């Protein structure tokens, strides 16, 4: 799905989290929003997901205005920073949650839900953990379960907030490839937020460098490395 962000701004009280920013995300792209904390990257992601509403500006999905669309109606697969798995539900119940929450008319039958959950568990290469609780999983496993849960609703796009932030360096490298594989397999337009420039450069097709609520540069990783547009980008990617 093609995403168009048109002059979006966001005020929290007196502080501006986002100055008007514009951005076009081509269908099927894997995009990184890269910047230090306070750069507005998470706010932008939450606006895309419908968890936050912009003070001004518009969001367009495939050319249709989606600015006022509710979070439920957006069908965005969202992976939260600390995964936000439902701690009192098993992994199976976590992944099945979105399917069970559908209105009766479009809710798949029980057996179909079970089949889809198993398929997703296979996709994240953890086929045997359906009966466990989130508290019994490692950080890397939790992240993958969160990804499976987001994919279960057959989302129109995938949004990830610091998906590798809470993991140690080795697991992080493995899961980077895992996300790339899942993106290539599903073909979903994917936006992830990170403060780690290596991660952004290695994983993304398109990198959006942000600072202080503004977009500093948009480009392919190689282009940003070769021709940083501003002093900030130069400093940030060489750090």
């Amino acid at each position: 799905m093609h995403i168009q962000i048109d002059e979006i701004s966001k005020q929290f009280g007196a502080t501006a989290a986002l100055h008007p920013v514009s951005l076009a995300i081509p269908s099927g792209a894997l995009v990184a929003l890269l910047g230090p904390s306070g750069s507005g990257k998470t706010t932008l992601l939450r606006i895309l997901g419908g968890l936050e509403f912009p003070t001004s500006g518009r969001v367009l999905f495939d050319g249709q205005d989606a600015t006022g669309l509710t979070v439920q109606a957006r069908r965005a697969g969202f992976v939260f920073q600390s995964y936000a798995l439902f701690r009192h539900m098993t992994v199976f119940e976590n992944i099945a949650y979105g399917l069970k929450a559908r209105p009766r008319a479009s809710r798949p039958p029980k057996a179909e839900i079970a089949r889809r959950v198993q398929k997703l568990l296979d996709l994240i290469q953890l086929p045997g953990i359906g009966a466990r609780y989130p508290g019994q999983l490692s950080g890397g496993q939790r992240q993958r379960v969160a990804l499976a849960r987001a994919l279960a609703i057959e989302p129109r796009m995938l949004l990830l907030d610091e998906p590798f932030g809470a993991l140690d360096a080795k697991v992080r490298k493995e899961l980077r490839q895992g996300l790339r594989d899942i993106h290539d397999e599903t073909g979903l337009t994917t936006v992830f937020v990170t403060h780690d420039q290596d991660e952004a450069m290695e994983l993304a097709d398109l990198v959006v460098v942000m600072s202080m609520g503004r977009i500093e540069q948009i480009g392919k990783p190689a282009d940003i490395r070769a021709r940083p547009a501003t002093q900030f980008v130069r400093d940030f990617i060489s750090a």
Partner: protein
Amino acid sequence: MSDIAHPRFRAATEEPPLARWALIGIAALGLGLLVFAPLIVVFAEALAQGWLAAVKSLGNRDALAAIRLTLTIAAISVPLNAAFGIAAAWFITKFDFRGKAFLITLIDLPFSVSPVVAGLCIVLMFGANSWAGGWLVANGYPIVFALPGIALATMFVTLPFVARELIPVMIEQGRAEEEAALTLGASGFRTFWTVTLPNIRWALLYGVLLCNARAMGEFGAVAVVSGKIRGQTATMPITIEMLYNEYLSVAAFSLAAVLTLLALVTLLLKTALEIRHADQLASSRRH
């Protein structure tokens, strides 16, 4: 190897033996004097003239009426306060708004106001001489010296218990799980039933049990509004006081023993639930 003397090191947080035993002793003495001794005395006094006398005093019409009234009041005020507590905690922890700190203070108000003052306020507002009370009495719905007044007084006094238990738990849990449920397509109502409520159930249960214990034991506020009509508006604590003042100590302590047992039953219930759901408790960070 055995001839090498191993020096014994103490952990940094470990106190010297003397201090340890002194502290344990003080704690045990305090618990014994303030908790266990009175408990034993209540039961010993109740049974001073044997089981028969105790049971016979409880079979009395007024005593039965008091037990029924106390249970009715608890059955009215606890669910209402649980509902209020959940709503208040939800509102305070999941939304940002002005005057939040003020609202939290307001919820705590019944803890700092003397129950007698609370009772008096209800009498002033709904008594037969007040505007609202006069109208209600004229239409056959008396509040003061009747069940509604007692329920109101009890609810005022026990208002903070559930909200107080829930607020810290809900603050710690944050909003991420609710947001996740919403992004997965769940409605606000479904999110509340399937995500919020299960996450707070232990704190809720604990708050309800505390609320219940206090609701059954409340004396001061109820004493002002009830009018102490024997067999009609006298709750268990009030009946106990009246019996005691009349030197009917077996009857007084028998009823007191029943009140104590009701409290112990709620505690046992909580422990039983905790044992039964130990696996779920272990899988969540907090309980």
